[in-house]
């Protein structure tokens, strides 16, 4: 199937995007931020587990698959790799859903950021809203299904900027280690964040 045809067939659909956000809000109404957080994490983990596992002999082979969108980690999103360990999403794959929501429904419900606060304080700091919880949990679960040279892949969130401009970087005490693994400086990170949506690190132990 040609890329253009694939693009045409899989183009985002506002009905599903908006319905899914409202479905999540409905869950939050009944189960609160904690319940929604569990649901989002389960949603993302379930998706990653439903995809085939991957094995690569070398890091270069893995990077090729990642860059060509043949890996689970890049199946749903466009990525660039400023270094061999740093991955960047120029556009958040959830941005279009948010835009459809704000266009057709109104301002984004507060629960989406409240659940991120819950996630940041109880699971891992780095989420701006509910979409980041899905995305970051998916990446961790997907990485568990990828082995490079026999070693399990690891991912670490570095920073994200949402469509409305809100920015979230990991806690300052984690940053030096993460940036070292990414092979970028803090200045590099800030430069990347000017025109991109999400920055994360990939590595093996």
């Amino acid at each position, binding site marked *: 199937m040609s890329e253009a045809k694939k693009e045409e067939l899989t183009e985002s659909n506002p009905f599903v995007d908006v319905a899914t956000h409202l479905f999540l*809000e409905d869950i939050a109404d009944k189960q609160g931020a904690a319940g929604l957080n569990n649901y989002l994490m389960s*949603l993302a983990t379930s*998706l990653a587990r439903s995809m085939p596992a991957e094995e690569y002999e070398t890091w270069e082979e893995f990077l090729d698959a990642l860059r060509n969108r043949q890996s689970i980690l890049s199946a749903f999103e466009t990525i660039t790799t400023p270094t061999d360990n740093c991955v960047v999403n120029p556009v958040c794959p959830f941005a279009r859903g948010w835009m*459809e929501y704000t266009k*057709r429904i109104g301002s984004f419900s507060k629960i989406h950021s409240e659940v991120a606060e819950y996630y940041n304080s109880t699971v891992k700091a780095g989420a701006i809203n509910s979409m980041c919880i899905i995305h970051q949990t998916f990446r961790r679960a997907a990485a568990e299904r990828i082995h490079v040279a026999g070693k399990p892949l690891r991912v670490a969130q570095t920073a994200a900027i949402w469509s409305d401009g809100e920015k979230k970087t990991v806690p300052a005490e984690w940053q030096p280690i993460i940036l070292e693994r990414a092979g970028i400086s803090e200045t590099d990170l800030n430069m990347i964040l000017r025109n991109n949506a999400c920055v994360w690190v990939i590595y093996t132990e």
Partner: protein
Amino acid sequence: MLDVALVSLIQDMSDKAGVEGTIEYWTRVGENMAKRIGKEAYVGWPSFNVALREGRTGFSIEGDVTALTDLAITDVDGDVVGYLYALKQCCFVPTIMRTRLSVGALPSADRAVAEEYNNSVHDIAVCNFCVIHEKFTQEASKYITVGGQVLDCLMLATRGFTGDTKISEDNLKKIGMNPEYVRSLLRNYDCVYAILMKGARLAEED
């Protein structure tokens, strides 16, 4: 990605809450979405149809809706009280395609939910998402008035991703339309429904 994640959860949700539970969830999602989109008012059918064509109505969230203005619905006095509308592409096809390309086949719960809905609510679903869609169209029409009259929506026919079709003979009878008209529409459209004035005195077809 969000929608593909949701598809992967349909099985889990149906295993835990049963297919009836999934139908309840989806019904509420359709209802909430229509409520959140809000009210609209049009002076007459031409202005509603133009708004629809230009993507300004709540129904436009479904994608490209075509107003089949050659298929008007008339009441017992011969006045136009509604039209048939159709979607060239089901609003869930992109999600189904994304799922097939990245994950694989839809979970078996998709079919199970559709079958339960067909048996217990309305025999029109070709996939589990039809549950959300039918409820949405029914509810969204309640928030729209044409010439001061509240609207109603009747789902008439659907064609699924794998080619299976459903035609609602009960709803067709209500608007006095021959099922064969709608069957031929399914050659070119995935979903056909009627939007008409609520409570209109319709002449049922014999």
